């Protein structure tokens, strides 16, 4: 999740109300239970909600081949900000909404990043 989050670890404030009321928007940083390792909590950025059409680069390290999919019902599409080294929906597919735990909205540590989380860097 570089450069949004620190590589040595960030402390974030996470609110759990948006996931329950369904008020998430593309661009939010969310935390969720990993579909491959159920004891792990993962932090990525929400790119698409159910019904959205997503175009993504399949493997940024080997060319520019793109694929377009429609996010199925009851699922969301998450991607890490640093696409060259991330395991996200490009690897494990669309994420079931029930695995989302909360939305991160504020960085506490490190001190230089204190403040609201930035939108996705272009």
């Amino acid at each position, binding site marked *: 999740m570089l450069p949004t989050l620190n590589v040595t670890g960030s402390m974030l404030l996470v609110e759990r109300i948006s996931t329950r009321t369904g008020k998430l928007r593309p661009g939010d940083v969310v935390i969720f239970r990993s579909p491959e390792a159920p004891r792990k909590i993962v932090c990525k950025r929400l790119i698409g909600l159910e019904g959205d059409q997503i175009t993504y680069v399949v493997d940024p390290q080997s060319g520019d081949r793109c694929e377009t999919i429609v996010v199925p019902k009851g699922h969301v599409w998450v991607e890490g900000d640093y696409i060259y080294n991330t395991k996200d929906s490009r690897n494990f597919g669309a994420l079931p909404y*029930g695995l989302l735990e909360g939305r991160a909205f504020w960085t506490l540590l490190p001190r230089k990043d204190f403040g609201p989380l930035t939108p996705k860097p272009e």
Partner: protein
Amino acid sequence: MRQWRSIAKEAIDRASIIVKFLCLLHVTDAYVVSSNHVLGPSMLPTLNITGDVVLVEHLSHRIGKLGSGDLVLVRSPLDPNRTLTKRIVAMEGDRVTLSLDPTRSFSSRSLVVPKGHVWIQGDNLYVSRDSRHFGPLPYGLIEGKVFMRVWPPNSFGLLG
């Protein structure tokens, strides 16, 4: 003045007992044992179509002591606001065989349940929408294990 203070103190004491009780009730309901009303035809004959009240424990799935044959309460991968009651048929790494066309007995497809997922099916295969339709279920969507039925009273007892 002193009268109001003692009344306020007594009111706060009584309110704090109620608050403590509600907190304990919430923690027990969310993390230990809860009662759920389950209905639908997909688990006949194990569960009734008109609805049963079952006790669900929320400890086994956190310590990883779930196995095939367990009745579980899961959050639906198609509709996050719905919970389903199904039976675990296969855990991660097991092989599952699906029959593609019920009229031809030799057409079947087999797959291995991926890491971090389970395969769930309803006991009533004809009307159940389960892993045969939406694929393997991520383990993180399991909410608890059904172990007992408390209503209707004539079928009170342990399940599974």
